[in-house]
């Protein structure tokens, strides 16, 4: 056993492994801090696997076992079966529609028996990553061609669309993080910039008065025309381009955003977005109001309340925090969902700014390390995969932390390795272990 272990551990990136284990331990401790009640018998509850922290510990063990299994596999297995996995994932996603169980606010979960439940959309992040890496690493893929770019985009957007149909807008957004991978692989930067500008425009539409925004956009367009008057003299098409961009911007601001808000998003989601930017949302009709009421019942569980309580919990931590198990806000369930999406409150309140810095430090070191690992791969597949892992982790961490601190709307995205949730822990673990396995064979060129 020992020998085979040393054999197995050769070439594995120790830093990533240890950071991973550290994060999982922080996660279990935080869940413990959030759910432990005075007088609980810790040893017994850990062994009984009835409490959340003991369940999380159990899932951690499962993850380790799965991870060892992954490490024992051949790295070619992943390249070979990537598309298969993706197809399997898509099948699961489609099967969700007829077989999903009745759980409030989501249609994405299948239950097996009593305790076990499966959310294919989470698993699919892993599969999409594999499939995307596989597609990008194909010999015949020429990623400078827009056709390939379209196909790559389709690979990641397909599950996202299914996720939206299952009322999991938050997890759907995660799939957009794969555009960072594509960017690394040569996707024109302008697409990222356009995407980013689009996001800014949407936010501006919500925050600024429509007419003022339209005037501002017109002003900017006029200014640009003035700056580029020479080029315009030479090429009339530049003028057409600018006017075209202006028209698109105003169109988005005037028609697209209201259309999305009124017809695509659920009213309660719109309300959460409005909550985040600090505006009151007036439901446009009775049905919308009813939807908000339905999705925010019981009364206290609306996004605004969550974020306010979460901000109070984090803010009350101060420089050094109140200490483990001493956080008054997190221990007495003022923050709803705090063992899952709002787990960071426990850390923020218990360990303060200093502790949060250490925690963020662990994450950023992990992310940078994964990027470094990605860059040292010989095979495109491994590199894409590693970037995929980094992007997905980054997106989860950023959105989750911003959400708890009131910078982003409340969308249910877990904090990787820390939030309570067996499936997400196992998925992220396997993702990391596959990365470690691929990295072990970094000298090989996988196709």
């Amino acid at each position, binding site marked *: 056993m020992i020998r085979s272990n040393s054999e197995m551990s050769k070439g594995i990136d120790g830093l990533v492994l240890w950071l991973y284990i550290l994060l999982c331990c922080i996660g279990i401790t935080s869940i413990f801090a959030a759910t432990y009640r005075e007088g609980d018998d810790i040893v017994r509850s850990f062994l009984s696997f009835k409490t959340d922290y003991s369940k999380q510990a159990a899932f951690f063990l499962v993850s380790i076992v799965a991870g060892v299994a992954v490490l024992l596999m051949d790295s070619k297995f992943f390249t070979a079966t990537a598309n298969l996995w993706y197809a399997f994932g898509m099948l699961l996603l489609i099967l969700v529609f007829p077989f999903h169980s009745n759980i409030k606010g989501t249609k994405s979960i299948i239950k097996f028996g009593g305790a076990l439940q499966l959310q294919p959309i989470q698993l699919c992040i892993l599969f999409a990553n594999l499939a995307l890496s596989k597609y990008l690493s194909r010999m015949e893929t020429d990623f400078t061609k827009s056709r390939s770019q379209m196909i790559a985009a389709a690979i990641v957007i397909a599950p996202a669309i299914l996720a939206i149909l299952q009322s999991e807008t938050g997890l759907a957004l995660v799939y957009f993080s794969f555009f*960072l991978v594509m960017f690394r692989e040569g996707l024109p930067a302008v697409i990222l910039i356009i995407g980013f500008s689009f996001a800014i425009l949407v936010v501006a539409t919500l925050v600024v008065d429509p007419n003022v925004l339209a005037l501002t956009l017109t002003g900017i367009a006029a200014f640009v025309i003035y700056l580029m008057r020479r080029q315009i003299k030479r090429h009339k098409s530049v003028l057409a381009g600018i006017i075209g961009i202006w028209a698109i911007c105003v169109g988005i601001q005037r028609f697209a955003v209201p259309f999305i808000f009124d017809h695509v998003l659920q009213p309660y989601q719109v309300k959460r977005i409005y909550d985040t930017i600090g505006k009151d949302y007036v439901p446009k009709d009775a049905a919308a109001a009813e939807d908000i009421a339905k999705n925010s019942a019981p009364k206290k569980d609306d996004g605004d309340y969550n974020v306010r309580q979460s901000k*109070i919990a984090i803010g*009350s931590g101060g420089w050094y925090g109140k200490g483990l198990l001493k956080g*008054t*806000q997190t221990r007495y369930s*003022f923050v709803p969902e705090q063992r899952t999406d709002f787990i960071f409150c426990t850390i923020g309140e218990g360990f303060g700014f200093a502790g949060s810095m250490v925690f963020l430090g662990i*994450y950023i070191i992990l992310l940078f390390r994964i990027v470094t690992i990605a860059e040292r791969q010989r095979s495109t597949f491994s590199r894409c995969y590693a970037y995929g892992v980094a992007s997905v982790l980054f997106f989860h961490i950023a959105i989750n932390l911003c959400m708890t601190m009131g910078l982003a709307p409340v969308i249910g995205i877990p904090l990787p390795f820390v939030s309570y949730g067996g499936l997400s822990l196992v998925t992220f673990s396997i993702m990391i272990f596959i990365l470690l396995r691929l990295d072990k064979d970094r000298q090989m060129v996988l196709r």
Partner: protein
Amino acid sequence: MSVFNQSRQTIIRLIFAATFLIIVVRLFTLQVVSGKYKTQALDNAVYRKVVYPDRGIIFDRNKKPILNNTIIYDLTVTPYEVKDIDTTLLCSLLSIDTVELKSRIISAIIKNGRYRPSVFEGLLPIDLQAKLEENMWRFPGFTLVERPIRTYPYRAGAHLLGDIGEVDTAIIRRSNYFYQMGDYVGRSGMEQYYESVLMGKRGVQNLIKDNRNRIQGPWENGKYDTAAEAGRNLYTYLDIDLQLLAEKLMANKVGSVVAIDPKTGGILAMVSGPVIDPNDLTGTARQKNYAKLALDVAAPLMNRATRGLYEPGSTFKPLGGLIALDVGVINAHYGVSCSGAYYGCSKVIRCEHHNPGHAANLRLALANSCNSYFSQIYRMTVDNSTDHSTKKGYTRWMEYLNAFGWGEKLGIDLPNELPGNIPDTTLYNKVYRGQWNSCTNVTLGIGQDKMQVTPVQLANAMCIIANKGYFYTPHFVERIDNETKKDTILNRFRVKYSPLTHIPDEAYEAIHAGMQDVVESGTARIAKIPGINICAKTGTAEKYTVLDGHRIKLPNNSMFVCFAPRENPKIAIAVAVENAGFGSTWAAPIASFLVEKYLTDSIRSEKMKDLERIASTNLMPAYLKRRQFIADSTRAYYYFNLRKDSSYIRKYLRGYRPHEEKPKEKSIVFIQPKEKKDAIAGRKPAKERKDNRNTHLFIRGQQLVGNDKKTLKAQISG
């Protein structure tokens, strides 16, 4: 391919770093820069439970508790725990119906939430509490919660002991937010004055609560908790037996009795009539009785000992004599010849006596209470030639009275004391445009005119005369339990004031002799107690009031002051009985009984019949009924206008009705023409009444109406 886009890894790293930087900055502002989240977190999770200490107990001079604590119970409900209760039993016990039960639980949820207990039925009577106690297991979610209340074991001393009540916003603001909503605080009497001593020190328990406001345990292991300190007891000079006797004697009378120990200034008894039972204003009884007492025009809640203003009448005469002696305008042998009235001024002042020589000297004049004599010496004092000015003389006379503690607050240990009224020259200058002389206010010399004092001031003046010039501010509390240097509240009561010790002892002796003769051979022979030399003075002050637009003369106020024994004064008493008649008829025996009780600890058996007679006599002024009717009707009319609901009027008219036959067509009597009103009230038409002005006389509860004063007077004397 990777080679082409190598530089892009830097961009990706930069995106990561920038995002984390934003998060760090946000974290810094949340946790370090902004302080509000810390307080919000405390507000959220820490419940400051105030632990109320027991209030201090008040003892009388024989260490008998006269104000104590006891426990009664509130029935509270925690709505979310209420399951499968025996509804019918609970309803029958509380005598409510199920609809009421439901609505009370709903209002509890609205008020305090589902998870916190709220009061379902407060202040349970003892028998109901016992019945509930037996059956509590049938009502999960309901609990009996102890609640300490104040109790008065002797049912005496309502006005001086005072009561406690919940703080209102004004008190909270005045206390600089020391008190919190729901705190109990002394609202009157000694409870209010000694609030800081009696209340003790509130303790604070910091408890952790969860998001549903359920208590989870102590916060930080009670590091910031403070323990409650019980309120300290007060030991008073009050003699509860004397107080009980005084209250018995003052039953069904309007007025006041104050008894002070002249040597210490300690108040031995203080009664304000109508006498009320203090237990009527605690616990369950308070809701029932308070409104009735507060709306009573006889003002039973007012402490007449410190807030009742009385013309001292003849009881002023010892003071007038002393002042005249000290100013030097007379000596003890000065006499006037009185033939039944004083003719020195344009208005004639009647005197009760007309036998010659009844005012041959000061002693006789005092004993016989000669109005002429004291009018004369008042004028002599004010017009004293050495002053060259009536106004200067008046001012000096007024300063003497101020030295006696009249016209100024004494500063006794009860709140809201009134200063009485001794007008200075500015008032007379204003009223008479500067044109006045000693004749204008000559009746001041016999304790009338604008002179008004409170019974406490009257009793205190007796103390000064008994002590020959010095006094201690009248007060109740002798000492505080565990008194320390920090307790400055009693310091001012231990200061000996000597405002009038410069008056020679001979002057005092002369007055004492005259006052002793009042009892021995003068107007107050009824107050004589064998073996005890009492110095006293009766008083009969005229009273008028305006009723139904007419100024009517009321029966005189019966006043009496005394101190005893003359040689070594141990008790000084002032008695005022409103609208009772002569001072010697009612006030004098009351004071006499108190002196006897205090000095000999018992009442002679042959006097017991007299005592019972006085105690059982109802001297409530008759005009009060009419005034009550007017007050109630006015209020009813006000509410009728407010609500347009005649049931309010019926509610207010339920009590006293002047006449049984009510007009059938309308029950609202106020908005009818004058003639009809008169007809309903059974009065003569207004025109006729005008001719008979001043001929309505109220004597001892009887209204006498006639056209001729002489026949009326004959009726009275008959």
